């Protein structure tokens, strides 16, 4: 009984190490194959359109309500201390340092990351990835590299959009609804944010972009392995997609803590 448990634990550890090795090779291949033999500009632009432009609506919607909630909560907390004038600082710093990068990454994972995992997973189970190999086309370059590049470009831009829209959402509740002076609100926003905060948010967005694209493409690419118990059918794609979204979200939060630890 004890021996069996140890064996199971050992087997799980070996599987874990194998997965880390596989994902690392996948990531480095994705980076290197991006430029060799040529940069796939049109494919990258297609993915920027899909990951970036098509996520704008959901980002704006999430950001405006996040900003409005922050404005509302912030106002009623600060008003007790007579500091409602600092609402602009509270909203802007919360958004730019933390909520902007994290929430936009989670929203993009839900919208584009799941689609990446499902699309590549279907390519895997319908032998399209095998077909690429038989045509001597590198499947990692074909499926992952453009998505990685597009994520690196899109995530910081969408985060910036989230930040700006969120600050506007805070303005709506703080200034328009609750009567905070608009000049003071904007002045506090501008004064409280320095370049280090924006750069920190930018670094986080970049890292999240890499994490989401790598995890989602990896899960789809190896859908036939991760869903081995479910066979190589639709079930393995659904398992891969779920895994991709859950793992991406968990890794976003973990890496957010690590980056913040080094930034503060």
């Amino acid at each position, binding site marked *: 009984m004890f021996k069996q448990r140890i064996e199971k634990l050992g087997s799980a550890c070996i599987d874990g190490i194998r997965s880390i090795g596989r994902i690392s090779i996948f990531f480095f291949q994705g980076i290197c194959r991006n430029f060799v033999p040529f940069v796939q500009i049109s494919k990258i632009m297609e993915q920027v359109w899909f990951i970036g432009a098509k996520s704008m609506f959901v980002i704006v919607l999430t950001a405006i309500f996040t900003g409005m909630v922050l404005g509302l909560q912030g106002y009623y907390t600060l008003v007790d201390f007579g500091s409602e004038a600092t609402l602009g600082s509270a909203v802007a710093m919360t958004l730019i340092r933390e909520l902007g990068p994290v929430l936009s990454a989670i929203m993009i994972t839900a919208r584009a990351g799941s689609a990446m995992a499902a699309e590549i997973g279907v390519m895997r189970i319908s*032998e399209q990835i095998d*077909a690429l190999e*038989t045509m001597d086309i590198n499947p990692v370059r074909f499926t992952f590299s453009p998505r990685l590049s597009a994520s690196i470009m899109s995530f910081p831009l969408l985060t910036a959009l989230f930040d700006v829209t969120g600050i506007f959402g805070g303005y709506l509740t703080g200034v328009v609804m609750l009567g905070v002076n608009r000049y003071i609100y904007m002045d506090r926003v501008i004064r409280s944010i320095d370049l280090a905060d924006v750069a920190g948010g930018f670094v986080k967005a970049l890292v999240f972009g890499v994490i989401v694209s790598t995890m989602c493409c990896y899960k789809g690419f190896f859908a036939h392995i991760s869903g081995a118990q479910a066979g190589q059918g639709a079930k393995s794609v659904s398992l891969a997609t779920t895994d991709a979204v859950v793992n991406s979200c968990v890794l976003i939060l973990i890496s957010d803590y690590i980056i913040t630890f080094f930034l503060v």
Partner: protein
Amino acid sequence: MGQPYIELIDIHKSFSANHVLDGVNLTIEKGLVTCIIGKSGTGKSVLIKHIIGLIHADSGQVCVDGLPMNQMDNNQTHRFHKQISYMFQDNALFDFLTVWENIALPLTEKKKMPMDQIRQRVKEKMLALEISKHENKYPGQLSGGIRKRVALARALITEPVAVLFDEPTSGLDPVRRNSVHAMISTYQREFGFTAVIVSHDIPQIFTISQRVAMLDQGKIIYFGKSDEIFQTDNETVKAFISGKETGKET
């Protein structure tokens, strides 16, 4: 006996406890059509996937022009892949690409040929396979027969030395089945490529192939000229080609 092009030597392959190939020896001769027959689930597709490198043998060797594949360097492997095409059982067409893009993909991805030349070559293949009017459609908008033709056009676009067909007529009606056979035969004669066909279409497939190999219980139990298979003494082969049950299920 023609000149050997691909040789499979003592190939063993298992998936967990399931021993699929148990010492397969097979020689594919240059310029000929070799047909692989056998019951469903005997490992015919697994066998030809060893040739293209999609599956690696547990033991044994695949040699191309006498050179073992596992001893090839990167350049030799790329060169071999350029010479060979594979037509999948379910076509494996990219559903997000149009017919034109699917056919041109092996050329456009390499960017080694000028675009004008690619256009010309794709146009020729589409004309020959009578799929020109479908060039802007997506695979999902096509019938099974047209999809097969698109897959065949994609397999032939690089003008390969060898083409591997994995059940090219599965799911087609008898008329379309005959037309796919005729197409393969015509193009094989025209371009002179070596062909390996996994098929269940007995006896029609014997009319377009020069060699037949039968796989049973992980081994090649018959290999010979297609017009001689009906004279074989092997009971399993006789029973299989006449559609009789032998009682030995794999």
